[in-house]
């Protein structure tokens, strides 16, 4: 699937360099707007000639483990620190993927990250973009990174 390898490279690089976690990629798939249960999502809009969205969807347990490793402090509930960390993670991933897809830096601009969290929600991208999602595993926990892109002609 197009862009799966870029997602894998960017995610492994960010996790190993910024969070000190080795993450193992699984088979890329098309996420069918599945429900997210007790989860948190970091999302960043991509604007410019290529538009889209980069999202990372994690269970609460994975988000706590990642934030604990990221900030170097124990976090036990989904609080402001976790929401900020997951939004920032989405921002870093989007920045890394942008640098691969758009080396000149002129085609894609990132918007502000948001975190969505709750017991039961789904996140759909609209407007007929092409989507690919890659699952990752670490320490028995998992998350997915989803990239949706639409190139304006």
């Amino acid at each position: 699937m197009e862009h799966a390898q870029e997602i894998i490279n960017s995610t492994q690089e960010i996790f190993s360099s910024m969070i000190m976690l080795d993450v193992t990629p699984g088979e890329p798939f098309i996420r069918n707007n599945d429900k997210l249960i007790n989860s948190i999502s970091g999302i960043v809009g991509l604007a410019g000639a290529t538009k889209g969205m980069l999202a990372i969807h994690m269970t609460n347990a994975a988000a706590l483990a990642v934030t604990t490793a990221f900030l170097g402090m124990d976090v036990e509930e989904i609080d402001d620190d976790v929401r900020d960390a997951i939004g920032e993670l989405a921002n870093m991933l989007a920045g890394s993927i942008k640098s691969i897809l758009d080396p000149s830096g002129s085609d894609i601009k990132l918007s502000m990250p948001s975190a969505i969290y709750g017991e039961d929600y789904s996140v759909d991208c609209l407007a007929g973009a092409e989507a690919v999602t890659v699952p990752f595993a670490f320490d028995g926990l998992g998350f997915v990174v989803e990239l949706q892109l639409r190139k304006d002609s």
Partner: protein
Amino acid sequence: MDFAKIITETTEEIFNCMIFIDIAASPPLAAGKQAMGCHVSAMIGLTGGLSAMLGIHCPSAVGLAVTGAMLGMELEEVDADVKDALGEIANMLAGGIKERLSTENIALELAIPTAVTGQSYVISAPKGSQRVVIPFTISQGQFFVEIKYQLN
């Protein structure tokens, strides 16, 4: 950059001219307050002279009423039509904001809309970002138009 005024004017314009529903704007929510009781949202990123996320948040009944008016059909559940309609409204709102800010020499580009639906979710913004939320009332209830932004 009076976002309360910009959002109110843009939203009224779109609902009056494109959706043909009467809406009544209320004053912005107090700082720190979020839209509550919403089960369908659409959001879209804007970037350039500032970095922002524009969102519209509705209880299901309001999302169904707005979509029904837009499409000229009765809807019974929050389905793909409702998500698409709200995404399109978010897109139009962001376009209106972009146009108004261009007159203040703030250039913006839009991302593509994302829909969030569910029984229980909250959308947060990074620390240090500003948030303006305007409630609007229609006969089925209230919806909220929100912008979160940071100066670049």
